[in-house]
């Protein structure tokens, strides 16, 4: 049987388990003796154990061996033979990392590439001195082959155990077909094993009967019969010498795949395709609605209306099916923060808020790395060392909060630290030196601060560290967020901390937009960023310091003219009463007026990835096809504000 079809499932599940292991490791590290410790160890053990079983089934030798050694150490911890200390925690963390790499490498067909010999030896040194316990781990890996896995332990004083094992195997042969043994049968017969051996048996007999037959064959102290699984591929030669380390049986738990009924795993690419199709369908719907309107056939219009509604519901369902809780990605961050904090000797209390908030799966995957950037920045540059904090009258342990919250049709992600804040003086000095701001300035607004930090290569870090400070932090995040149709904000108070705010649309693909016309072009403005539209009457227009502003509801808003932005001549009204319109765009609490010729309608638009032309107009964030089939540029509100 070809295992390739299981590889992705293996990868997905292994990643989940590794995330769970990391989470539990952090809990364990935080409180190694508390009431939650044993639950954490048990949880780690289960995760590793499952990975081991799956890895062995897939024939990924390195994964299986590493998990096996890790499991051995965990088993000792679980039984209280090994106390948690810094050294062990470090090894466990490291082993989990290498295990993750091994999993990825194995699935990519490079099973042998991750070299873990040293780590295995280290693990072994923690695990190997475990006293053999009657219920303890098994000493040999599961043999590859078809059928149920039968593990047998003989009494330590068994005479001629090779022969005894042979009798047992023969007894099993009477129940079915023995397809493989571990160690190989020749080695078993010549006493080439300790007390444990394992057999693959294809048999119609129930496990109890198999076990009974084995026990009857004599000198058996333990038997475990695991039900058969999908026939595993013959495992690659085991390259790590671990034959004497105790371990547990890699029973493969497939229940999480098929058992818990109400979920089906779907390749996310399939959802992407569905999303694209529904996008095309929405365009067609718009076209259809328009044509039906023109024809004026009532029956047709009715049918089109009904189809439209159904297509809308379909869109909603597909959008919903792509939503996953941010915890999918956030759950690995505690580990990231912990490692980063340790690397620079800082004490950080990391809090994650709003894990249940849902976001489009693709969006979440896209934004994960950016959040890591921000977290690392906060650890590296934001939060001070315990000494510096104490000197500043703060608690030695810094606080780093990652939160997600829903705000209308956007999700707002904040990374907030209580560190020293961004050094504006230094940013200003650097900006002056680079000629980015006027030399006479002695302060920077938050917006200017963001714009400066978001410049490629702009860094004020004194030295480059492993974590950040290579000048690829904020600008990379800023670019990414904008590419996703989102926006970014910085709030920084000297001595009190910095908050980075990312505002992301719920989904990448479909947004409702206001269509506006300027000259002969129709542009789309995402409705999420439109607070109102006003006719541009001369009474609400003012000029302040040579700049046009708008008076709207007792508020003075900066005014921009789209015509100016795209380089068109001023509007020539066709008649006295024809007025230009202002679209009031907003982003968080920033607002501005955008003057356009005419409002033409609202439409659901499908955002097409748009490769912005370098040095092109920066305030367009994408392109779309309108329902009449004509292309339209999408205004990137965040770049205007």
């Amino acid at each position, binding site marked *: 049987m070809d295992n390739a079809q299981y590889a992705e499932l293996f990868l997905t599940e292994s990643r989940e388990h590794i995330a769970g292991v990391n989470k539990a490791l952090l809990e364990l590290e935080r409180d190694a003796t508390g009431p939650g410790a044993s639950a954490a160890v048990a949880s780690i053990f289960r995760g590793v154990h499952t990975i081991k079983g799956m890895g062995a089934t897939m024939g990924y030798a390195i994964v299986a061996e590493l998990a096996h050694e890790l499991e051995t150490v965990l088993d000792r911890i679980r039984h209280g033979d090994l106390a948690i200390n810094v050294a062990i925690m470090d090894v466990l963390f490291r082993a989990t990392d290498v295990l993750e790499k091994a999993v990825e490498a194995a699935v990519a067909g490079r099973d042998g590439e991750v070299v873990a010999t040293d780590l295995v030896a280290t693990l072994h040194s923690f695990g190997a001195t475990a006293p053999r316990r009657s219920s303890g781990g098994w000493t040999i890996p599961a043999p590859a082959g078809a059928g149920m896995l039968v593990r047998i332990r003989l009494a330590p004083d068994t*005479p001629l155990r090779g*022969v005894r094992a042979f009798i047992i195997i023969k007894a099993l042969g009477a129940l079915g077909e023995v397809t493989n043994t571990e160690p190989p049968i020749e080695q078993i017969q010549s006493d080439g094993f300790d007390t444990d051996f394992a057999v693959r048996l294809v048999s119609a007999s129930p496990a109890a009967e198999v076990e009974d037959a084995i026990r*009857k064959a*004599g000198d058996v102290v333990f038997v475990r019969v695991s039900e058969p699984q999908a026939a595993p591929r013959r495992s690659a030669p085991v390259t790590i010498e671990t034959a004497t380390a105790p371990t547990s049986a890699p029973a493969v738990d497939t229940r999480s795949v098929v058992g818990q009924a109400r979920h089906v795993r779907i390749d996310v690419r399939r959802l992407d395709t569905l999303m694209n199709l529904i996008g095309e369908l929405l365009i067609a719907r718009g076209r259809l609605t328009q044509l039906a309107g023109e024809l004026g056939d009532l029956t047709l219009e009715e049918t089109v209306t009904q189809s439209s509604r159904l297509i809308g519901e379909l869109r909603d369902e597909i959008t919903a099916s792509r939503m996953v809780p941010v915890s999918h990605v956030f759950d690995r961050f505690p580990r990231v923060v912990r490692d980063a904090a340790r690397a620079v000797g800082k004490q950080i209390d990391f809090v994650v808020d709003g894990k249940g908030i849902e976001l489009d799966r693709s969006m979440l995957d896209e934004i994960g790395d950016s959040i890591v950037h921000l977290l690392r920045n906060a650890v590296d540059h934001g939060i001070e060392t315990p000494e510096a904090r104490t000197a500043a009258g703060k608690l030695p342990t810094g606080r780093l909060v990652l939160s997600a919250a829903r705000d209308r049709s956007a999700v707002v992600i904040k990374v907030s630290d209580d560190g020293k804040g961004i050094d504006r003086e230094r940013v200003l000095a650097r900006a002056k030196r680079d000629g980015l701001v006027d030399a006479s300035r002695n302060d920077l607004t938050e917006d200017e601060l963001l714009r400066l930090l978001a410049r490629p290569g702009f860094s004020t870090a004194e030295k480059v560290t492993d974590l950040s400070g290579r000048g690829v932090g904020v600008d990379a995040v800023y670019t990414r967020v904008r590419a996703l149709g989102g926006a970014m904000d910085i709030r920084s108070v000297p001595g009190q901390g910095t908050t980075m705010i990312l505002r992301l649309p719920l989904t990448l693909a479909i947004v409702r937009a206001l269509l506006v016309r300027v000259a002969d072009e129709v542009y789309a403005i995402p409705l999420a960023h439109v607070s109102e539209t006003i006719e541009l009457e001369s009474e609400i227009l003012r000029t302040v310091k040579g700049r046009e502003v708008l008076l709207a509801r007792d508020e003075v808003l900066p005014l921009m003219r789209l015509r100016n932005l795209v380089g068109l001549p001023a509007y020539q009204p066709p008649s006295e009463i024809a007025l230009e319109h202002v679209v009031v765009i907003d982003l968080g609490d920033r607002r501005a007026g955008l003057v356009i010729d005419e409002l033409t309608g609202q439409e659901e638009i499908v955002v097409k990835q748009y490769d912005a032309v370098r040095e092109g107009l920066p305030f367009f964030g994408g392109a779309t096809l309108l329902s009449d089939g004509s292309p339209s540029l999408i205004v990137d509100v965040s770049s205007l504000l």
Partner: protein
Amino acid sequence: MSHTVLICDDAIFMRTMVGDILTQAGFEIVGEAETGLQAVEKYQQLKPDLVTMDIVMPDMGGIDAVREICKQDPQAKILMCSAMGQQALVVEAIQAGAKDFVVKPFQPSRVLEAVQRVLG
């Protein structure tokens, strides 16, 4: 009803010892053989419930005797008596049809356990 046993060993010492162990446990020793050939003949003649079989005997070794007996009676219950270091031979005997084995020096408990297993 007690089980009947045929003891096959070329050494009187071993036959006596095995005989004592089994007799004390309530078995009935119905015959003894000193060679493999004798073992085959006496098996046909006595149809014992159990045979204890030494591996190394003159005039047809124990393994050949097992093979011969099992050819005639596939249900024959034969317990091999072996010394340490004979595992390859014991495996061969098992392949030939023997049901179990005990290892010299005999411990009564082990012998009886093995006998119980063979008689099932």
